């Protein structure tokens, strides 16, 4: 069997008693436990409607949806919100997630009626400002990456990967190279990379990492053959390192007739400093919800525009904005080699507005400074923690925007990476990314981003060093029972998976007492 033990352990830790909750954080019942089907927080006129146009399909099944009046709803959702950690309340050192500050100007401008209250299918003559905005965003993205085109519509990073790889597949087909059915993926890649390649029917060929955490150009060359369609590589990679041989790799990939897909999740380290097009990449998605500050929203929405080299530009999906004489046009139906739609409409307009607002605020100079500060902050954390924490690829020199540690500093303490991360919660910090990348044992990946001040970084480092000291001093229970100061202690994920309860069920009525 494929002893896949890479995932993090999931026990609920020791059952040492601990106080949880506080009067400011009361438990909140479910909407279904406080609302009923009679109440409503929306006033609407009552009208009756006949059956003339309903074709006999009038609803008979009860909706069974509880309603809350406005004050009740306000309290329910405010109380629930307080059970969440958020970037506005503290540092989120999540590696590969780029949890940076989300400026509120972005939110304000995305809500302008001229952007928020326009329909994707209203006449193109009535949305010229929207198309100009998209064109301006595209200009920034192409300039920052030195590429020939950008497909704006992908809804998130994984969707962008799919889009970019579809363009690669289409380009091969157009060149009579449709037989190419293998994609090279380094072991350190994000899970979405092999998932995307497989989703499109490609066989995945793994490229092992070198001892220094980077990809070996020779290993790539050895894996290249006439069946290879593309390589999917993350740069800077998931160990937080710039791939030093990336130009050689790109050259070899192109000589073999394949394309170079770059996962742009880590673009924050190099925006305005290095242009991916200069490295030889053919396609790269850009997570606007990471690099360009659009909020994560508890898991989305994201946006994943894909920049494309001249070779792939003819294969971008529709719709896209076309500039020419006169008004801007929206090309909505595939022509030539263009891919068809990957989403119903024009992509994540609301995210485009936020991202462009962020770019204009920073300017080209500010974006480069942000990248430099992100790298500075990661190296500062690495320098301050590196004396105590084990740094797996220290020989590789400075890291980029994230610092990677392994769990060897915890050897013999009885404390795992998971325990350590959960203890961080009790100290007021969100955990770092754990057990990723898979190439490092018990990985802890810290990405501070440029948003954190030196004071915050020092607080974080002090807490991390204090925890490490305590773990090594034999105070394992502090870790194995953590967190004790969060709204919940560790949750029983085994129970959740063995007996899935995925929606609220009305409790059985109490049995009637026998008379």
């Amino acid at each position: 069997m494929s002893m896949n033990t890479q995932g993090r352990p999931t026990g609920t830790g020791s059952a040492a008693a601990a106080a949880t909750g506080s009067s400011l954080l009361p438990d909140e019942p479910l909407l279904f436990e406080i609302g009923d089907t009679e109440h409503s927080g929306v006033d609407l006129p009552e009208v009756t409607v006949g059956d003339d146009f309903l074709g006999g399909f009038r609803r008979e099944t009860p909706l069974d949806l509880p309603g809350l009046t406005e004050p009740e709803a306000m309290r329910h959702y405010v109380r629930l919100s307080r059970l969440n950690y958020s970037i506005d309340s503290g540092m989120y050192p999540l590696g590969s997630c780029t949890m940076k500050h989300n400026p509120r100007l972005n939110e304000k401008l995305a809500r302008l009626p001229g952007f928020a209250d326009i329909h994707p299918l209203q006449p193109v003559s009535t949305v010229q400002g929207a198309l100009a905005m998209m064109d301006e965003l595209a200009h920034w993205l192409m300039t920052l990456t030195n590429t020939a085109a950008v497909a704006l519509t992908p809804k998130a990073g994984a969707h962008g990967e799919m889009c970019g790889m579809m363009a690669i597949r289409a380009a091969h087909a157009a060149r009579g190279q449709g037989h190419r059915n293998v994609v090279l993926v380094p072991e350190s890649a994000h899970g979405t990379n092999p998932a995307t390649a497989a989703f499109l029917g490609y066989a995945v060929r793994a490229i092992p990492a070198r001892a220094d955490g980077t990809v070996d150009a020779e290993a790539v060359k050895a894996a290249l053959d006439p069946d290879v369609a593309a390589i999917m590589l993350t740069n800077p990679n998931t160990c937080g390192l710039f791939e030093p041989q990336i130009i050689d790799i790109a050259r070899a990939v192109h000589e073999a007739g394949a394309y170079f897909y770059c996962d742009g999740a880590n673009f924050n380290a190099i925006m305005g400093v290095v242009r991916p097009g200069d490295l030889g990449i053919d396609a790269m998605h850009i997570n606007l919800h990471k690099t360009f500050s659009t909020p994560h929203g508890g898991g989305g929405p994201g946006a994943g525009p894909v920049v494309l080299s001249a070779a792939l530009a003819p294969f971008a999906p529709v719709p896209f904005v076309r500039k020419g004489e006169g008004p801007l046009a929206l090309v909505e139906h595939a022509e030539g080699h263009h891919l068809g739609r990957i989403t119903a409409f024009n992509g994540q307009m609301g995210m485009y507005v936020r991202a462009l607002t962020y770019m204009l605020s920073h300017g080209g100079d500010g974006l480069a400074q942000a990248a430099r500060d992100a790298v500075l902050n990661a190296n500062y954390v690495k320098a301050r923690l590196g004396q105590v924490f084990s740094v797996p690829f220290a020989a590789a020199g400075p890291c980029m925007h994230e610092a990677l540690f392994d769990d060897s500093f915890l050897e013999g303490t009885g404390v795992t990476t998971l325990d350590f991360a959960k203890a961080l919660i009790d100290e007021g910090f969100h955990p770092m990314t754990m057990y990723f990348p898979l190439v490092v044992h018990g990985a802890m990946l810290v990405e501070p981003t440029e948003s954190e001040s030196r004071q915050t970084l020092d607080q974080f480092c002090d807490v991390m060093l204090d925890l490490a000291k305590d773990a090594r001093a034999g105070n394992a229970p502090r870790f194995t029972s953590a967190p004790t100061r969060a709204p919940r202690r560790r949750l029983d994920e085994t129970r959740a998976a063995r007996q899935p309860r995925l929606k609220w069920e009305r409790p059985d009525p109490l049995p009637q007492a026998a008379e």
Partner: protein
Amino acid sequence: MTTKYTEDHEYIRVEGATGIVGITAYAQDQLGDIVFVELPSVGKVLNKGDEAAVVESVKAASEIYSPASGTVIEVNTALTGEPGLVNQAPDTDGWIYKLRLTNPAELDTLMDDAAYAKHTA
């Protein structure tokens, strides 16, 4: 009746022409709580080394590769409702599928009890 082991921690208990396949106590301990077992379909023809089943913990999915070639004649449907049997009794109630062996000679390439004990030491 003999039991043989693969390097990937599957066992196969041979009873005449039938092999009973599961994962070892060592493997279940490494994987942690098993929450789901994807069983092969009865009648499926497997070659030695083919992916036959999947056992899932909360955070990992691990493929079970068939220790021998043959046709699946029975699967342990009890695991559908109670995947934890793989943890509680990997050698007995936690078996995964039964195989009518088509090439018993293959078994000679697998480890015996002593060799497996050494392998996991």
